[in-house]
């Protein structure tokens, strides 16, 4: 038994925060919620972006794609005030991260992660 304790290189929460930070840089702070998971799903096996999804599993049924990890990360981001969901229909996610905060967060990750987040963020 190897007793070294490890954590993912990038957690589901960090992946979402990274993508949202890229979106802030691009001036895109309003997102449709209903297509979020299916859009991310398209990038999970893309050679350039798969590193982002180390900690995210998707469940694909015949007619839907869902992800507990994405849902939990959104809930976490909302808990920390980084995103909100607009009343009353809740169909949009609003990103509250400032440009400065987005830059700080992006800079804490290696280039390959930033590049991957840049590619994924183009889809929104």
């Amino acid at each position, binding site marked *: 038994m190897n007793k070294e*304790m490890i*954590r993912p290189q990038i957690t589901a929460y*960090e992946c979402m925060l990274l993508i949202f930070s890229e979106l802030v840089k691009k001036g895109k702070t309003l997102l449709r919620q209903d297509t979020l998971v299916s859009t991310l799903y398209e990038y999970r096996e893309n050679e350039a972006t798969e590193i982002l999804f180390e900690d995210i599993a998707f469940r694909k*049924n015949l007619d839907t794609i869902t*992800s507990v990890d994405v849902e939990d990360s959104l809930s976490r981001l909302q808990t920390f005030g980084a995103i909100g969901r607009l009343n009353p229909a809740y169909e949009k996610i609003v990103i509250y991260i400032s440009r400065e905060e987005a830059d700080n967060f992006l800079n804490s990750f290696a280039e390959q992660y930033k590049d991957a987040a840049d590619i994924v963020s183009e889809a929104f």
Partner: protein
Amino acid sequence: MKELKDKSSYKQIADDVNNFVKLKLDHFSIEGIEAKTIHDPIWGSTGYSEWEMQLIDSPLLQRLRNISQVGLAVLTYPAARHSRFEHTLGVAAATKRLVDRINTNCEKFKIEADIKNKLVLAAIMHDAGHCFYSHLSESIYGNLKDFSELKNDIKKIYGVKPKAHEILSLVIVNSDAFKKFFSERVNYPNKSNINRLCEDVGKIIIGVNIMDGETIESYQTSIINGSFDVDKLDYIKRDSYTAGLALDFDIERLFTKIKVHTLSVDGQVEHRLVIQANGVTAIEELTFCKIMLFSYIYYHQKVLITEDMIKDYVQALLKLDIINSYADFLSFDEASLLELAQKQGDKKPFPMYGDICLTQLADNIRNRILPKRCLEISQSIVQNIIKEEPEKNIELQRMLDAIRDNAGYDIKMLDADINNMISYYTRSNERYIAGFMSRFESGTFDGILKIRKQIYDVLVDIYQKNALNVDFSVFDIYFVFPSVVSYGTPGEKNVLGRDGKLMSINDFVKLEQWASSFNAYKWRGYVYVTSKINKEYALEACRTVIFENKIELNELKSFLKI
């Protein structure tokens, strides 16, 4: 499962687990074990067949009697002494009822006896992989390097991310020792393909859909590991009952409205577990109960601190090479774990962090000497930290002028500006703490220990400035950062409308939105200190380490008893 079994990550853990299962089952005699009726406060009287009892009475399942269902919550809710064993019986009882009700509710679809037996077997074995203090121990062994490799391999092959104990349950069910016992001694009704049966059971436990030819039999997995699975049906009722909490949901309504629906898309067929639209209220209640249960029991501040104390103790056992294998994790129960300190109590597991010894760690838990909160972290404790940006009003005016004057506003620019404005103007009521909290996300034990050390170092400075004696260590400071309560995937289409159309729970109640809003205001992180440390000073140190002295905190003293 061949691909998984061929992985070195699987083989290594499987060997270890196989030795444990062999030890438990090799000398166990099934002689005289008969069918029984067992009485239970949650499910009433349930009949268990001969083969079910042969498994239930085996040492492999009996060990669950000594693993508490709710970990150390018993130190806060004294009556919550129930074990994984009662829960396992309850899950098996719920499975039988649910399958029978599905067969009554569906006109054309019937769950055959073979499938029912397989599901009951999965129910009986679903928690067989739990180790001492249930989820607490899995948060340790589940993050060890070789276990993490196995988790990654499972994700690559099946696309799922099961809990660590579910993986151990899969490995147990598919161990040679278990299959030998099951095929040679258990009187299971159909033993024509034990390998396939055990593989299916393992997959169901970790949440992988079962295939029958080209048909996706997702209902089988959903019954044991899904949005409204039998596991939840039992633990929500049982945990709230024993803790004395008045939480309930309408299980009769759920049983009346649950069905298996046949879905066909592009020639592929899926048999999916669904709830009829007029039974959605039962799912709402179930979700609400789950979230409340986390809030009341599992994330109760006293429960969280006791769990962190035992984590220190288990990490100490790992560092001192007292726990050396997954078989050790499976072999120790909660009583024998604490007894280890009596034999090797004077050893010092964390020399870098002071003189704390095993006995002290164990005694504090055994005698319920708990540290107290000095800081509660949440959106509500921070003052509004969002800076006013008066230039935004000018920007907005400029933008409106440009639109009104039809001054050739670039559409892309307009889109970005509108986004920016909405983000700014709707943000004003939010309490933004992500910038501080993100660095604590998913911290390992060593990572969290470093934060505790930082708080300790600042505290030592404060004590020295005040000419006070420092008689505490890092292990008098605890930093607890729980995850949010998962409300699952309400976007999954498992609600059957009157017209036969499938919808999601979200189509009815926007469940994920109210659940995440509830989470946002209920979540709490904590810093605790023992009575050796002055809480005023501790709070000061926390402001420095956690919030970097950058934000104003609301008054905490009134309810934190500082």
